[in-house]
């Protein structure tokens, strides 16, 4: 009688231990899966954000380099125009006044044309120095 009660008791105890263990390990697996999924979602989100930032930066880089090459072309055209003006000024030198061996060079016109170019170059420097970085032309 006593032995039978002891065996039944042991079986019940084993069953309880087994049930607790099964519930525990099942919960662990489900919890781990949840954490992994959340981590993957977060990672995917961050990756998508980085990719979109990268695309935006590439577009901005292209539009700014276009702006700089337009400014470059304008400057080159201005230099060509200045050179033409300088040549014209030299070509327009009148013949020497009687008694002088040479005619006078058009120093004032040359100076003014050169100074106009210097003013352009200095304005570009002002643009760079006053720009906050985003709001200049």
């Amino acid at each position, binding site marked *: 009688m006593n032995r039978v009660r002891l065996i039944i008791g042991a079986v019940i105890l084993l069953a309880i231990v087994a049930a607790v263990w099964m519930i525990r390990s099942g919960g662990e697996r489900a919890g781990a899966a949840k954490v992994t999924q959340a981590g993957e979602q977060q990672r995917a989100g961050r990756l998508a*954000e980085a990719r*979109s*930032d990268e695309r*935006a*930066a590439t*577009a*901005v*880089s*292209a*539009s*700014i*380099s*276009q*702006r*700089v090459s337009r*400014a*470059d072309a304008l*400057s*080159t055209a*201005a*230099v060509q125009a*200045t*050179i033409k003006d*300088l*040549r014209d000024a*030299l070509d327009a*030198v009148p013949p020497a006044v009687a008694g002088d*061996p*040479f005619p006078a*060079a058009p*120093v*004032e016109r*040359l*100076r003014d*044309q*050169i*100074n106009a*170019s*210097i*003013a*352009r*170059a*200095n304005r*570009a*420097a002002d*643009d*760079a*120095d006053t*720009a*906050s*970085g*985003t*709001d*200049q*032309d």
Partner: protein
Amino acid sequence: MPTLPAELIKTERLAPLAGKPSGEQVSIDKGVLAEIVERTAQAIGAVERGNERAVGVKALWSCVDTIMRTGATPAACGPR
């Protein structure tokens, strides 16, 4: 983005010609004078383009910085 180093956006300024005569005269061939003033004009143009590049570097840096921080492209950074 780190701070944009100031050396990369340093601008160059030129002093204008005063053209003040010294009173001493020399003669110079017109072709030689023409070449000197043309090269001077080209050098000034190079300074202008260099300054424009500083404008571009500054804009690119701050636009990319804003994109990295906020994810949005400022209107001034778009194509124009």
